[in-house]
């Protein structure tokens, strides 16, 4: 089984949740299925990616013919690629792209990440995907998130192989219904061409069916998973806050994540208790608004804003908290509560979060129901039994959610696409 995957991010370079999910999916498949060979196309790899899959840097694939000799090519390309591969790609250039802005190798540069000219980069990515699809051998195409949908569609057109797309988020989640028409059209086009749409939750699947008018028969919920914490993170000691309890929000402080509801709940709790503190970790467009709100409510002494947390800090933050809250207004999946549970911190999540579909040992409330949220926070902080139960059972539950299982489920869908001609007959 050879899979050609298109992705935008991959660890160790992490911009958002997409990198983690891409890593988990590929790793889970490789670990669980010895015959799975994955070729992963990235706009700009950093060269330090793990070697369990074959990485193709799209910025090393030529789209304009350059007659360099072997040694020159060898000196110019990174070590995860051979000159033979370069020549192979060069042999499959399918049109004259010399008008484009290419370098001396005939390749295009990518800024990486999410720069201002994102739409150009998406377009370039899809042009290069045509070359890759012509030169590689594969059984199925898998494209992660809307940035790579055009590349996936292009590869499908060229090769005739089935296309799976993986919906990690939709523009409806990000914009709360006010979609960007360009993004929407790219998403819709990708979904229309896909043979199989994997959505990270049933919630997203319903959005895809309802807002993008897709056939429910080819849409599947494919929930994310988590990797067991590395020893380094496990060794972080849990902080004993003594009589004080710490309730944490961790994520981008933006409308989609519902920080204002958390603040309202915090206000209710602060009015009735003296030993509960609130931590707003993260940055985002609503950061200052939240700081102002805390001050306006007169609880600024109990609400803390430690700012953006990276790497190990995230886990230190979980381990120093007694309760983790994710009040997202709309969350396609939301990996954070799973990570918090791995650290032994019970979570409260909104019913509008996709991860709630696979989690049972968490408290679920409607994001707008600040009374219920405050009640749950208070209960977790005051009742030892509930806290202990959710901590212990949560650890067990999250240990059962593995990427290998996800890999097997994806494989089933692949097989269906390849051998039975998809889901719509």
């Amino acid at each position, binding site marked *: 089984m050879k899979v050609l995957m298109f992705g935008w991010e991959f660890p160790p370079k992490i911009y958002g949740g997409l990198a983690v999910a891409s890593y988990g999916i590929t790793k889970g498949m490789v670990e669980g299925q010895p015959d799975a060979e994955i070729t992963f196309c990235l706009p700009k790899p950093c060269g330090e990616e793990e070697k369990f899959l074959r990485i193709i840097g799209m910025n090393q694939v030529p789209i304009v013919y350059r007659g360099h000799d072997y040694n020159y090519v060898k000196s110019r390309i990174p070590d995860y690629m051979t000159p033979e591969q370069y020549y192979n790609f060069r042999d499959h250039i399918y049109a004259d792209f010399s008008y484009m802005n290419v370098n001396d190798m005939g390749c295009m540069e990518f800024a990486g990440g999410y720069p201002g000219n994102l739409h150009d980069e998406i377009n370039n990515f899809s042009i290069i995907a045509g070359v890759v699809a012509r030169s590689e051998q594969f059984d199925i195409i898998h494209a992660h998130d809307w940035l790579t949908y055009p590349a996936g569609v292009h590869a499908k057109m060229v090769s005739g192989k089935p296309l799976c797309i993986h919906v990690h988020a939709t523009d409806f989640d990000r914009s709360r219904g006010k979609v960007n028409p360009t993004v929407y059209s790219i998403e819709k086009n990708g979904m229309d061409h896909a043979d199989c749409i994997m959505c990270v939750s049933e919630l997203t699947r319903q959005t895809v069916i309802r807002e993008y008018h897709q056939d429910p028969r080819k849409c599947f919920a494919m929930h994310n998973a988590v990797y067991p914490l590395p020893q380094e993170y496990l060794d972080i000691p849990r902080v004993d806050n003594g009589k004080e309890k710490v309730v944490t929000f961790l994520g981008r402080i933006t409308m989609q994540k519902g920080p204002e509801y958390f603040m309202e709940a915090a206000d*209710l709790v602060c*009015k*009735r208790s003296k030993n509960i503190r609130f931590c707003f970790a993260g940055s985002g467009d609503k950061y200052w608004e939240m700081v102002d709100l805390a001050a306006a409510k007169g609880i600024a002494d109990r609400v803390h804003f430690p700012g953006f947390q990276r790497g190990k800090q995230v886990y230190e933050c979980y381990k120093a908290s007694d309760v983790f809250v994710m009040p997202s207004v709309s969350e396609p999946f939301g990996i954070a509560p799973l990570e918090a549970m791995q650290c032994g911190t019970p979570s409260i999540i909104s019913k509008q979060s996709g991860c709630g579909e696979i989690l049972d040992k968490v*408290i*679920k409330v409607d994001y707008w129901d600040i*009374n*219920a949220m*405050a*009640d*749950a926070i*208070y*209960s977790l902080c*005051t*009742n*030892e*039994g*509930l806290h*202990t*139960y*959710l901590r212990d*059972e949560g650890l067990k539950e999250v240990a059962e959610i593995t990427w290998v299982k996800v890999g097997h489920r994806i494989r089933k869908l692949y097989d269906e696409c390849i051998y039975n001609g998809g889901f719509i007959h």
Partner: protein
Amino acid sequence: MKKICLYFEIHQIIHLKRYRFFDIGRDHYYYDDYENERSINYIAERSYVPALQTLIQMCKDHPEFKVAFSLSGCGLEQLEFHAPQVVDLLQEINSTGQVEFLCEPYSHGLASLANEESFAAEVKRMSDRIKELFGKRPKVFRNSSLIYNDEIGAQVAAMGFKGILTEGAKQVLGWKSPHYLYHCASDPRLKLLLRDINLSEDITERFTSHPIMADQWLDWIASTPEGEDIINIFGELVTFGIFHPLQSGILEFLKAIPVLAKERGIGFALPSELCSEKSVGAIEVPYNISWVDEERDTSCWLGNVMQREAFNKLYSVADRVRVCGDRRIQMDWDCLQASNNFRFMTTKPGYQYRGIYDSPYDAFTNYMNILGDFISRVNNLYGGADNEEIDGLITMIKNQGDELANKDKEIERLRKKLEKYEAPAAAEKQAPAPKAPAKKAPAKKAPAKKAAPAAKTASAPKAAEVKKEPAKKAPAEKAPAKKATPKKK
């Protein structure tokens, strides 16, 4: 002759309302009046009324037909308040004389697992209620959800019951059959009636999913081996109409039982009649059993840490509530104890019905909020005295009660001795010496009689003695019946 012992329970909890933590200390009313009225009316209309009417008709048509009931205090309060026609029907069926009422803990709670005195007081209260409503003091006991172990058995025997109903659970019966009369391992005076799980659940659990005919069911009973004469069919009265809708024909099934039983030579018996017979042996039950779930134990109420925390917290104030003499608090105490509140918090898979709650955590949070308020009210009664002090006082009360009880016995013994002496003395007709104690006896008797009821009816009056306000005990002890009225207003 084989005998079927039919028994149905009537219990509905008083539903708690949505109670947020910011209500703690501000709102002391815990009940969802709308839900209570709605659910009890729904159940009465769909189940209790038609089922009781059918049973009354059956009693009238078949003089040999017998059936037993028990009521929980909470259920009874609800019925009296919202659906008194059910109580009327119960009195009507009672007047046929083919019915027996059993006793159960007033609150349908788990006090039997937590606090002996509270348990005894509750049982006493329920027994009085049954006596008042139906004219007879119950002789046979059934614990909430048939929870039983040897200790409970001993305690129930000490309260004067001659029999107890419990589950014919596989883990205690082993190869034995539930179709015999057994007795409690720790007190042979107490007979055990064990539920036949299969035959009971053919009706209570499986009637809709695996419908059976009454003749087939009775054939199974008739074909039990020779000598296995007691068939205990226990269930809840809501089996008829709620667990299985009336259109499933369950009442027709019920009606057919006495007719077909007669054809097969099977009779009916009441629990107290069976308990007068001789038992075939003891059953040892070291661990709790009940009639719930496949495990037949207490795991659905006390299976996880949340449930245990709630349970421990609740019963941590049991003694204080019992001796406080505050009626309002004791009323709330009954409602909070109901085992259903704990069942809503179960995390066992497959449990669907959770009342107004959408998850076990929600149920726990709500209950703990209410409990928080309740406990602070109880503690306020004691003016913030710390636990040790109060526990000390309670122990003192208990010890004094025990002492009085011992003295009572001693007096009784001496009095009998005295009578023995007096008898020959009277025969002699002449004795200046025994006259002296004869005079003393009545003097001694007077305080003894006063102490006797005090020692027996829990510690409430004695608390008053200790607190030096005996006036308070009088209203608390009287008027135990009409407690629903002030609360609901």
